[in-house]
Structure formats: C-alpha cells, structure tokens
C-alpha cells in the first residue's frame, strides 16, 4: 500500500503554519537549509486546554532534550505525538519562543519592532480563531535548536547541530492542532543569523 500524502508545504523564514493533523499521521519537519529553529506548539485537536507541556514531557522522559523515542505529552500527561525518526539528534524544549518583549530584555530596546515567533503565533492563532487565545500559547518545542544545559545549571543558545536536509518525524498519537513559527530571530545563533525555509510533509501510512 502506498503512502497517501496529506501535507506538503514549504514554510518561509518568519512565516508560520496552523492546521489539524489527524491521528496516525507521520509528520516530517525538514530543515531545508540547516540551523533553522522551528518553534512548535501542539494541542489535542478536540480540547485545546489539553496542550503540549514542555515540563511534563521533560520530567516523564527524565531528560532535557527531545529525540527519537521522546513522547510529547500534554499538561494532563496524554501522548500527543512520538518522535519516530530524527536525523538531527536533539531538539530543545526549554528555550521557549522569542517575542518582541523578550527581545527587549535580552538584546535591548532597538529590537522591539523586529519580527518574532510570538508575533507569528498571534497571527496564526487569530487566523485560526476557534477560541485560541493568548493564554493558550504555552512553552513550546524548538526543533533543530541547540540549547545545552550544563551540569552546573548553565543554559545558553549555541550554534545549531542541524544541517541542510536534516529532519525530524513525529507520529500523531491523537488528532492534533499544530501551530508553527519558523523562527525569524536575528540576534543569536539559533538560525545561523540567516533564517531559512522549512518543509512540512505529512503522510498516513
């Protein structure tokens, strides 16, 4: 039986994506040009309050980074998706998303009007409607982003471990709402100082 493709979209640098992903779908996110952070939020498609929780996911897997075998959990401990393939090797879920406000704190007032992930989340959430509000934007995943946590509790954003064509593949364990910001951050190495497009591919085996 051949795979039926349900999704094949390129998301430009600084753009986003929102939509439903049916249970059982294999969703592949490809870092087309390398070193591109993909800020990702997941929700139970039938109950947005049952959303991705970075801290529950970290605690239950007993490790900070996400890679093959990581089960992405909701705030209620339900499995949203499992990472079934990963050619990058590790992904961050501690660093959150950039916003205009956090850019001011981190880099100064001159960055206040630069594009940011939260702006993309806001735009896409408004476009989607259906009751999605500010308080539904919780801590996210940063696919392809490298935020090493050291034994003494240090945390820094470093050069990506990703490269052109690296991908991560998720299996949806329930019907999902997927919200992505293809990160426009220019002030740290998370996008190699040059944000680039990504590809989303979905198929149901």
């Amino acid at each position: 039986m051949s795979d039926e493709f349900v999704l094949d979209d390129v998301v430009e640098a600084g753009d986003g994506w929102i939509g439903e992903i049916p249970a059982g779908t294999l969703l592949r996110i490809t870092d087309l040009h390398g070193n591109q952070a993909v800020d990702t939020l997941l929700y139970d498609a039938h109950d947005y309050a049952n959303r991705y929780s970075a801290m529950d996911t970290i605690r239950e897997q007993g490790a900070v980074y996400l890679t093959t075998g990581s089960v992405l959990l909701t705030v209620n401990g339900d499995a949203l998706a499992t990472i079934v393939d990963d050619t990058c090797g590790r992904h961050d879920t501690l660093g959150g998303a950039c916003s205009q406000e956090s850019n001011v704190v981190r880099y100064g007032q001159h960055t206040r009007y630069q594009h940011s992930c939260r702006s993309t989340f806001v735009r896409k959430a408004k476009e989607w409607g259906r009751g999605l509000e500010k308080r539904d934007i919780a801590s996210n995943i940063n696919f392809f982003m490298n935020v090493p946590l050291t034994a003494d509790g240090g945390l820094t954003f470093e050069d990506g471990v990703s490269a052109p064509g690296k991908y991560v593949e998720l299996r949806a364990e329930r019907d999902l709402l997927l919200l992505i910001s293809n990160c426009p951050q220019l002030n740290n190495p998370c996008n190699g100082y040059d944000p680039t497009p990504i590809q989303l591919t979905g198929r149901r085996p």
Partner: protein
Amino acid sequence: MTAYTIEIPGGAAESQRVRRHQTLTLRALGADPNVAMLIYALDDPTERLNVPDTLKAQMSARIKPPMTLMSDMGRALATVTDSSLDWHDAITGHSLPAQVEAKYGSSSYAADRNAWRRSARQGLLDELWKHDLGARDLHANINFFAKVAASGDERGTLTYVPGHAAERDFVTLRMEIDVLVVLSTAPHPLDPSEVWHPAGVLLEVAQASAPGPEDPARHWRAETSRSLELAERSYA
C-alpha cells in the same frame, strides 16, 4: 517589618495577592520541602511568569539570587533577593493526580480526613478557580527548594537531588509589580520517597523598599536589569 505570616502544611495549596515592593519569604519547616509556584500580574493575569524567558535571558536553568522572575511581557514580576540555596528547580513541572495515586496509593477525605493526599495540580487548579482562572492558565512553574540537575550527557539526563533542602532553608522574593501568587506544598513529582510526608513552609510577607541603584539585580546581568526597568516603567 513583617506584615503577616502564614504556616502552610505540606500537601496544601494557597494563593495570595502580594504587592509591589513587598517581600515574600518561604521557610522550610522540614526536610525535602517543595513549593510549586505560579505567578500572575494582578492587573492582567494573562501576563504571567514565563520560565523559558526567565531562564534563557539569564542563561541559567536554575533559579537563584539575584535573578528576576520574568513575565511574558518582559517585566520582572519578582526578584529572588536572597536564599540559603543556590538552586531552585523550574524545569520539571508539578505532580498530577494519577501520579500521586500511583505512587502513594489512593486517598480520600472520607478515609484520611484532612491528611488526604492531593496532587499539586489539584491544589493549583482549586486555587486558580477562586480567581476565575483555570487549566488554560497553568504555566511552567518554579519548584522552590528542589534541585533537578542535568548529568551533562548527550540526552541531558536529569536527576532529582534528595536532601537538597532541609528545615530552615529559605528563599525571599521581592515583588516588582503587584502579583497573584498561587502555590502548592505537595511533594516534588520526582521525590523518590514513597512515603507521603511533605514538609510545610512558613510564608512571610513583609514591607520592603524599592530596589536602589546598588541592588544586586541591577549589577548581575544586563538582561536582569532591563527586566527591572520594564517593571518600573509600567509604574512611572
């Protein structure tokens, strides 16, 4: 000068409005205490503690003095002005009802009266409800008194450190804006003890003064200082 003191038993939940430039001190009353804390701006609870922003801006995965606790709007909600501990966890969340039942056995008011075992989630949601907030308002919490350290390996394997905090350990926060603090004293979800004996804490609220020019939070990291300035700007 202490404005008021509350003794909170282990396994309980509490919520308090604390005003700008008041301090909130938590003092452990036993071994291995844990205080899971959520913080909201009183004037607009959609503005709330943002743990990832707090950690990445100050390049620390542990909460310690003189870090500020930052909101999603960049404002310092509070400054960690003092603590007997240099590590408070903020990356492993809080206990869920099913986990508490699986670990410690089922419990009910009918069987155990007020010693019944309730998860941090249950307590936090009960307190949030009283302020017209709910499950969608949960955010990544801080676990004061807990240490969960990474081993530095390829996966970032985490280990809970038993015995990190003991009776008389403390932490003091100075609020930089008016906030709503919601907390639970249920055990940390990774506490390996299979016996339910959560330590209580003493919560003290006191009047303090505004951070002066020599305040350590202004001279640690530029990011910390900027978050204080953003908080101050909103009262200018």
